[in-house]
């Protein structure tokens, strides 16, 4: 995405890059497996987001620290080992915090290892930038990923079970639309968000074009 030899100056955009402009989910379409699999409740989505952020930040730090030590030829293998280490740590930590949460997220915590967002960050950013930048950038990406997870989890939980973070919202008479907590619902809600963003982008483009025409006239 940019020349690798010039390190980024630390700026606000290092952080916000992952939240909006290069949002790992909505823009880059990465890490979809956990995104769809564990977002049937907002709580699961939040936990998954935090776990991923932790792994992103820790592996980013280590990769950035070791960037001069790791030879190019074996860097991918090294990154994967580093990532797998932190994922295992998170896995144990979640078990220690709450078994129910661990049961709800299941094997998808361990599957963070193959989340392309993390390897992608390690390869494209952390391995070429100073530690502070790497941490800030990874944190931004983590926040962006968590927001994406939450945007799915909140919609799915509200419509699919009539509650939010486990708190009942509409009373006992509300008819939940169970399909939203089932697998098809995951696909549909993500498609819906992508559709909405694409619609917004189109609107903006048309408006810009109209303004241009107006200015020309």
């Amino acid at each position, binding site marked *: 995405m940019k020349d690798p030899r010039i390190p980024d100056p630390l700026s606000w955009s290092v952080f916000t890059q992952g939240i909006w402009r290069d949002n790992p989910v909505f823009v880059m379409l990465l890490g979809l497996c956990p995104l769809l699999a564990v977002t049937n409740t907002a709580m699961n989505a939040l936990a998954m987001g935090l776990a991923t952020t932790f792994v992103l930040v820790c592996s980013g730090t280590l990769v950035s620290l070791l960037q001069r030590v790791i030879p190019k030829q074996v860097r*991918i293998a090294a990154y994967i080992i580093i990532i797998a280490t932190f994922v295992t740590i998170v896995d144990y930590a979640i078990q220690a915090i709450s078994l129910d949460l661990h049961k709800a997220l299941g094997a998808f915590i361990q599957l963070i290892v193959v989340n392309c967002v993390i390897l992608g960050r390690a390869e494209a950013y952390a391995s070429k930038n100073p530690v502070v930048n790497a941490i800030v950038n990874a944190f931004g990406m983590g926040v962006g990923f968590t927001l994406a997870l939450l945007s799915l989890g909140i919609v799915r939980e509200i419509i699919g079970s009539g509650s939010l973070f486990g708190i009942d919202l509409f009373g006992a008479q509300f008819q939940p639309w*169970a399909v939203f907590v089932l697998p098809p619902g995951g696909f549909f809600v993500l498609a819906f968000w992508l559709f909405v963003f694409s619609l917004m982008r189109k609107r903006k483009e048309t408006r810009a074009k109209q303004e241009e025409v107006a200015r020309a006239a």
Partner: protein
Amino acid sequence: MTETAPVPTASPSSLRLIATLAGIAIMSGLLVALAAEFTREPILKNRREALEKAVFTVLPEATARKNFLLNESGLTPLGDDAISEANCYAGYNESGELVGVAIEASARGYQDVVKILYGYNPHTNCILGFTVLQSSETPGLGDRVETDPDFLANFACLEATLNEAGTDLKNQIVTVKNGTKKHPWQIDAISGATVTSTAIGTALQKSTTKLLPLIHKVEPEFAQ
């Protein structure tokens, strides 16, 4: 992750490559081992609490629990932490009398396997209740087996008596259509959630057929 980048001009020796990788591997091994060590106690505590909660749900009168491994060769008492090795858990009331045994069972549900823990009282030959340990049944339909009061009423005392020879159930536990329960060994299904109701019945029937003869053989050994 496709291919490694173009080889730099001065490529490091393979010894250095291996050494770096080995170093990283050792470091991560250490980190992981540390994490596993630190979290072992809390995880065990969580497991114990979760199990205790489940056991006390299916054996309402119990206040204490002990782990056992039950198989053809008899009953083996296990330590308090050996939760994953145990396959049955005895519950005792405050005066130390056996109030029942909690056993895991599983069967095919609608979407996937349903895993339950059920309580059995060998004195009264009753199944006292069950709790779902793991299921992915349809929300609002199959998952009602845990909440539907009419369905739970089946388990005030679901009869599971052995035959004279002590080898098999006298009357097989069976799930029947909603509203047609006639005998204490029948389970009245939830209307509309027949598949999940039947899965609970099948799990109980299979597990009791296999384990009750064993339990009755070793019953005195459960005493504290």
